[in-house]
């Protein structure tokens, strides 16, 4: 086995498995998108609760913080008796990891709106509701998007771990490669995960800049 040293990258393997790579790309993207989207929806609800009843912030960050600290493998295992070994299991776990990041940024974004801006808005005659939608939300948007960006990039990384559930997106190649000592598979899985994370990261940076032209350096 050592005698016939296989090349680090077997291009022919990549070519032959292009269909599988595309399928796994789709799986990686959809697991990420569904989890972050679900995380966003739940976070919106929980942030609304926090903004209305400020005292709920500590317990909510405590619980979501606790979820965040559970190792992903352990969480998948814990969910197996409840939902089984499937995509639902993966999405629940991945979603739960996004909550702390997204909620914290949403609350920080809203809290970060400068007091004089709020006072001026009141003084100009904004109603409480109009002030929230036209002042607080747009001004908090860069911080909220930054939260989504971190949550998304984190999720892209965590999706690879769902390979143990028979999913994994690019993680599937990494796990298979490790089991068979086949370097090409490992490299394909690792490289594509990093590329995907980078593309999504840049997409969010672009989105943030597009939605808050005022926050770019003045010139």
């Amino acid at each position: 086995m050592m005698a016939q040293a296989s090349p680090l990258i077997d291009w022919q393997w990549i070519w032959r498995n292009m269909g599988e790579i595309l399928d796994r790309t789709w799986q990686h993207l959809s697991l990420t998108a569904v989890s972050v989207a679900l995380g966003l929806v739940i976070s919106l609800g929980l942030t609304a609760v926090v903004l209305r009843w400020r005292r709920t912030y500590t317990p909510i960050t405590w619980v979501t913080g606790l979820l965040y600290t559970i190792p992903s493998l352990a969480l998948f295992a814990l969910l197996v008796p409840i939902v089984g070994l499937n995509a639902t299991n993966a999405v629940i776990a991945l979603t739960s990891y996004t909550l702390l990041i997204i909620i914290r940024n949403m609350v920080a974004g809203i809290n970060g709106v400068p007091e004089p801006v709020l006072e001026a808005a009141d003084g100009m005659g904004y109603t409480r509701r109009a002030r929230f939608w036209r002042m607080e939300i747009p001004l908090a948007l860069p911080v909220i998007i930054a939260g989504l960006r971190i949550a998304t990039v984190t999720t892209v990384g965590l999706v690879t771990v769902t390979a143990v559930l028979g999913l994994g997106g690019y993680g599937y190649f990494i796990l298979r490669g490790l089991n068979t000592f086949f370097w090409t598979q490992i490299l394909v899985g690792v490289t594509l995960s990093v590329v995907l994370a980078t593309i999504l990261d840049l997409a969010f940076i672009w989105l943030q800049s597009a939605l808050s032209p005022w926050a770019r350096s003045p010139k």
Partner: protein
Amino acid sequence: MGPQDLTDTMIRLEKVAKVFPGASRPAVDDLDLDVGKGEFVTLVGPSGCGKTTTLKMINRIIEPSSGRILIDGADVVAVPPHELRRSIGYVIQQVGLFPHRTIAQNIATVPALMGWDAGRIKERIEQLAALVGLDPEMLDRYPAALSGGQQQRVGVARALAADPPLLLMDEPFGAVDPIVRKRLQHEFQALQQRLGKTVVFVTHDVDEAILLGDRMAILNVGGVLEQFDEPATILANPANAFVEDFLGGERGLKRLALLPVGEAQGIRWGPVVDVSANPEEAKRVMEEESTDWIGLLEEGRLLGWVDGSAVGTGPLRDLVPRPFLVTLGSDASLRSALDAVVTSHARVAMVVDQGLYRGMLDLEGISEEITE
């Protein structure tokens, strides 16, 4: 206090008090205060005197614990706060421009809330930019691109946008550097003279209060009104030791800065004759005035002065007068007259209005005003 004097009253505070939750004593205590229409009233006092609290109760940013506030005869609680505030201009120290909106959009805030059409808003923005001295090029920028002074100009323009009759200003020039502050003060003073708004202006700077206010209300800690009158009157007759102390040193000079030369009692004709006068008469005038110089006029215009020893028997017209280095208009302040006196050779300030000689002030004439 009949209902008829409400027609001249813009704001009336009746026994207004504010006790903040958990505070042991009131921030404002049973305050009565009237502000006339078109009047510029400054609220001034040390920190903790409740001046800002008082201001913010007028537009209900802070709700009073007790008492009543009337604007133009109507109780401020009669309409929802957001409606009340759209009819009151509001300027705060930190400006509070909306960072995500362009300067034009910031200025258009209240007109937009009131549903003006786009054409009218655009016209109004351009008008206001010119009014507050804002380069139209700035209008499409975001607030972050502006200096502190420019931001406060925008803050004032935004407050004036819907042409409210009443303007509330909370230390509006407090955050800019002293040079810009002075310029903004003078510009705003000129602007106010043109617009005739009713202004309530909070400051901790007693000189600013003296400079800008038609009347100034001096508040003590706990929202106690110590004195409420015209600055010149307060400077001449401080009601008590607190007010005297708060006004600080150089009260006489501060008062002189407020009084125009034209209204001074001590202004007199002095040793001045027409060039057509007989030299003998010139000598007689110098003797009466016991001066060694004489001022020469031609058809009411001040030519200058000549030394007494130069006056001989020949016509005065043949003498070469030396010009007075400093002359003052009758709207100049007595303080500048005092400066002219102490720096001039002849120890007098000559008053000239539209080219015509009006009279002169000497040290004695000016100090009459101080001690009055």
